């Protein structure tokens, strides 16, 4: 038997067999439903005006705007992430370790910082226009609206897809490709016909992460003044302080999310992706790039310049201006420590609680496990402020003593970012032959021992990917942090936001650069020299 049939230890009279993993998975899924329950309770107090506003024409515009942005961002992210994953994993690209790490770092740039930098650089009267004016270019494309939102969100979220696809690519048994080659396929043919289809789960999972993140994104769309659902929810709160109205709008958003999840559900077919036969998994043979290495390097450099160098240059500019005025930077180190501390905590806890869900989804496919899986996405797809208020509501009514402590905060991060951890885990878990776990159980190892000694070592890349995703996203999280953190618990993200809001740009830039450094360092450790991390 597999690890799933461990029984709950109860007095023998009461003993019945509910697999522990199901109980855990259901408990986590229940917690993930808290925002949804909150929205329903809040929406119940909405008045007729709130509902009639939803039925008005503006909702249609919000739907079109949100849907078109989400679709455009997702497709572009896939177009960026797939080639990078292939180049850095399967070719003899020079400095592959460096590229592997650096292409993940854009994830650490909060979208509001990125948007701000792009507006400075590309916006009206921006640096680019100053550069082009002598050449006779008077007007560059409007950055505000769809274009700027699309550009910003794409550049700072494609690593979600990249991390997941790369973990998947690493786990593929190269012997299948070799079999295709031996049957007469070219290298490209084998890649497109054998490898890419095997990547269906990671691609679908990563795309879903990007799509739902885009739906819940607030920083970039508010700077770019592009009217999406999330922005409308914020406006309802900040313009009318209307909690019920915001809840009604959020429920419409949940409808949109459910639609996206349904598309994804229908796309996933029942299929096995693990090997059945014996034989050791080996490293794949690297594709020789030859002269193609130059365009590859140029494309990667261009991406890194736009997504990293432009924002960093803007930040350094502000920092140097501030240093010129003798600006001081109080409290930055302590904020950095707190940021790294809560983010690592959130990463660890979220991966741990995501494990039961990932296990039932992969090992017990069926209606209930799929439902659990889908439900876990709700918090992730909702505006952060809504999730924060849901936890204000629940914590104060059930356990006021944990309100505005680290417990509520980490809980919020878990509800918000659970799908990222699950995504990391499932791409690895899907490749593991259940037979291995079954063999362990047949050798009288318990379910927990089997999990620790067989499953976990095999899914280390997935664990690391899940941890990295949650860690990076938590580093830049803002709305839940400002409301739910213990009082005076200033992180880099809150410090950065505070200084930006008051136009103390040198201080904001220092916080942003430190945030980037704190986020980038673990990425280099995890992914930089990572040939060793393979199992």
């Amino acid at each position, binding site marked *: 038997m597999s690890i799933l049939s461990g029984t709950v230890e109860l007095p023998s009279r009461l003993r019945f067999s509910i697999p522990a993993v199901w109980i855990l998975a259901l408990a986590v899924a229940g917690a993930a439903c808290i925002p949804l329950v909150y929205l329903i309770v809040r929406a119940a107090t909405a008045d007729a005006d709130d509902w009639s506003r939803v039925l008005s024409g503006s909702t249609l515009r919000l739907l079109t705007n949100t849907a078109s942005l989400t679709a455009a961002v997702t497709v572009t992210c896939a177009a960026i992430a797939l080639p990078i994953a292939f180049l850095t994993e399967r070719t003899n690209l020079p400095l592959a370790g460096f590229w592997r790490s650096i292409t993940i770092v854009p994830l650490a740039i909060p979208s509001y910082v990125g948007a701000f930098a792009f507006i400075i650089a590309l916006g009206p009267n921006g640096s680019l226009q100053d550069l082009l004016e002598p050449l006779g270019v008077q007007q560059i494309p409007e950055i505000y609206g769809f274009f700027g939102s699309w550009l910003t969100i794409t550049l700072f979220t494609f690593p979600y897809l990249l991390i997941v696809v790369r973990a998947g690519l690493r786990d593929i048994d190269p012997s299948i490709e070799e079999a295709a080659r031996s049957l007469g396929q070219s290298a490209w043919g084998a890649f497109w016909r054998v490898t890419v289809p095997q990547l269906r789960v990671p691609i679908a999972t990563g795309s879903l992460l990007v799509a739902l993140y885009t739906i819940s994104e607030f920083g970039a769309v508010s700077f770019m003044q592009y009217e999406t659902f999330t922005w409308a929810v914020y406006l309802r*709160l900040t313009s009318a302080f209307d909690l019920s109205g915001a809840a009604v709008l959020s429920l419409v958003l949940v409808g949109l999310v459910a639609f996206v999840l349904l598309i994804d559900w229908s796309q996933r077919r029942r299929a096995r992706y693990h090997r059945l036969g014996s034989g050791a998994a080996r490293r794949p043979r690297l594709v020789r790039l030859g002269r193609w290495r130059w365009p590859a390097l140029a494309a990667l450099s261009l991406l890194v310049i736009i997504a990293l160098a432009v924002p960093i240059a803007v930040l350094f500019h502000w920092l140097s201006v501030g240093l010129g005025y003798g600006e001081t930077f109080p409290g930055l180190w302590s904020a950095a420590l707190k940021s790294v501390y809560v983010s690592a905590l959130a990463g*660890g806890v979220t991966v741990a609680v995501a494990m039961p869900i990932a296990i039932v989804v992969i090992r017990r496919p069926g209606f209930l496990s799929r439902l659990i899986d889908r439900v876990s996405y709700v918090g992730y797809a909702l505006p952060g402020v809504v999730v924060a208020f849901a936890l204000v509501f629940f914590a104060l009514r059930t356990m006021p003593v944990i309100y505005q402590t680290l*417990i509520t905060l980490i809980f919020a991060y878990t509800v918000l970012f659970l799908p990222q951890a699950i995504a990391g885990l499932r791409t690895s878990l899907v490749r593991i032959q259940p037979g291995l776990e079954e063999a362990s159980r047949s050798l009288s190892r318990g379910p927990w021992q089997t999990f620790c000694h067989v499953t976990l070592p095999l899914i280390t890349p997935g*664990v690391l990917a899940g941890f990295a995703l949650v860690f990076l996203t938590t580093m830049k999280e803002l709305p839940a942090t400002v409301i739910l953190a213990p*009082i005076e618990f200033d992180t880099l993200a809150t410090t950065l936001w*505070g200084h930006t809001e008051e136009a103390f740009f040198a201080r904001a830039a220092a916080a942003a650069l430190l945030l980037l450094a704190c986020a980038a360092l673990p990425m280099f450790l995890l992914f930089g020299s990572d040939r060793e991390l393979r199992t």
Partner: protein
Amino acid sequence: MPDVRAGLALRLSLALLALLSIAAAACASEESGQPSASQSGSDELTIYSGRGESLVGPLIERFEEISGINVRIRYAGTAELASAILEEGDRSRADVFYSQDAGALAALAEGEVLRRLPDDVVASVAPELADASGRWVATSGRARVLIVSTERVPNPPDSVFDLVNEEWRGRVGWAPTNASFQAFVTAMRQIHGEDTTEQWLRSMLANDVVEFPRNSPIVQAVGDGEIDVGLVNHYYLFRFLADDPEFPAANHFTDPGAAGGLVNVAGVAVLKSSRNSENALKFVRFLLSQEGQSYFREQTSEYPVISEIDARPALVPLAELNPPSLALTSLSDLEGTIELLRDAGVLP
């Protein structure tokens, strides 16, 4: 198959996880002990501040120093905090709400979570700078002005409505995504009506108004000679003058009594649920004291709101600016303003 390294990585990550969980539990129990202690103590005060630390941090420190009260403060966006207080209801952890604008205070007053302030506190400011029922009071003000070049604009326009004239084609800058600009448009809608406002916005676009992402680049652009006039808040100029006393620009007040001279305020309120209302009131009184008001005048270059302290020289006195018909609390109708800005083609 797992090799030795993977086993090691696993053990390391498990150890790390265990360590983190212990740290979390320890930290959480330490944290959770604090709120109950703070609520019973008489030398504590919890403030939710929509005004940022860079602006008011030193003032809070000074208050702690002279009152001996230990202030715990949560800085975040004014609107987020106001909504959070509404969601917390009578279980709120805040004693005081310190707001960047009057709209959020009005929302809390309407949500019936605010305590009435003593009459003498309310009476220390002009009637239009406090809630009619005494539930909140303004603490400082900021005015919309035209920033004009002292070198190229000898005769600044008397009204923002003059900026649509041919004379000003391509010479004016604005920041339509900025919150202060949007509050100004909200005021214009209220005072002059939707149609007039939309017409003005369209005419400004037709007159080649120059778009900026924020306020300070507008002031910079006037100084650099890129444009001659800009729509901004009054205090930006003082930041530039602090760095360069010769900075070639000046604040110009247009049409007092119309939207062009809008004054918005920051303000403060005490929550009904506060268990430290004595301390909360001490804080409110401190903000309205001579020392607090001088801080706003000198450090944040804002308008003081008590009559004992004058505005900075070269500023039109507060009392002459806002038209009596304008309700500061309704300036938060951002949704309507954004829709209008969209319809007029100012926003995408």
